[in-house]
């Protein structure tokens, strides 16, 4: 279990307890947090679960898999701290993770 803070583009904060094994994307979708579309359902085939990971957290996350950066090229306004939230699996180590949501996904 990890407490994850999702911050909407407008500043609205959502602190959610997400079970281990789920992805950061699933944590958002299952709790109706606006701003994560996840059109492809987590198969890394779209770029609509794009998040900006808070700078101090970014290097602590498991590395991107092959293909994630290719999809991020197609995201809305990707930055150096961009990730696809469907590719971040939740574990106890992620307790306290903060992600910012982009202005929009498409």
């Amino acid at each position, binding site marked *: 279990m990890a407490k994850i803070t999702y911050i909407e583009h407008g500043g609205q904060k959502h602190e959610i307890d997400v079970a281990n094994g789920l992805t950061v994307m699933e944590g958002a979708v299952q709790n109706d947090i606006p701003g994560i579309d996840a*059109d*492809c*359902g987590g198969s890394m*085939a*779209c770029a*609509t679960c794009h998040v900006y990971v808070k700078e101090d957290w970014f290097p602590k996350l498991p590395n991107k898999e092959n293909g994630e*950066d290719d999809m991020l090229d197609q995201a809305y306004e*990707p930055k*150096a701290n961009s990730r696809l939230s469907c590719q971040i699996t939740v574990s106890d180590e992620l307790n306290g993770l903060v992600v910012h949501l982009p*202005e929009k996904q498409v």
Partner: protein
Amino acid sequence: MIKTDALIIGAGPTGLFCAHQLGIIGLKCEIVDNLDKIGGQCIELYPDKPIYDIPAIPQCTGEELTNNLIEQIKPFNINFHLSDRVQEIKKEKENWRVKTLKGKEFLTPNIVIAGGVGSFEPRKFPTKSTDKFDGKTVLYSIKDKTIFKDKSVVIFGGGDSALDWAIELSKSSKVTLIHRRDEFRGAQSSVDKVKELQKNNKLEIFTKYSMKDVKGNGKLESVEIKDDDGNSKLISADYVLGFFGLIMQLGPILDWGLNIDKKTIPVNTETFETNKQGIFAIGDICTYPGKLKLILSGFHEGALAARGCFKYARPDEKLRFEFTTTSKAVQNRLGLKND
């Protein structure tokens, strides 16, 4: 105007198999899809990726699955209307009158929405200032490459479309290629070619830059690009091309008075009909308790929706349940010769 028993929106696996099921029970259908090819997400997003959960097919790619489905519906001679999108629907007595973007009209008692997550559209620049040049000098696809001759063209993107057009247009235009990171995801041979062209001063490349703004009064004059540290650069441009892949949008479907729940359409699980009589939704676009976004679920949903269409297409007939293994009528529809 085309009269048909059912109009299917979406030529992905779910729409294709629904067409098969309609054919099996003796109904005609037409299929409209926004893409220029058959196959939907399977062909657009993952043609080469293996799929492992199609029943009785241990492994196949998106392209193989599509080709097999096309083969399977061959006996029914189904018409496809590709690169077109259903725009407007209107109830006319027992029928729906359907109009497409290209001006085609259909009259049908049944509409089956098998639209996946929506129609594919090119992803555009996030900047507002590009809007006023959209379709004129800011483009997301190329129809006529001769317009770029002797012009300055700034291309954004790191995939095959961006690389291929950079290579092609560098022959007769001043090309600048801009990508947000150092690595390109296009084919290695194209990446090598682009770097060689750069070495020979045939084109310029700026990596770790993205679009900041476009400038020009009435006519496009330049593009401002920025890096992650906020440094910006101005590049003169007659044309700007963006190749950021495709996004999926529900589009006009939102205007048809259907119940929508988080970009999906609630249906009953008996016939997959929506809240509108004669409009069905199957595949990724439909939702119901327990819904799984799997291709195999789409097949099941299509089979039931086809039966749901029957009562509106043949109100005076009763649908008899038949097996393809034994029914002469079904085998005739499949074009098989019976002795």
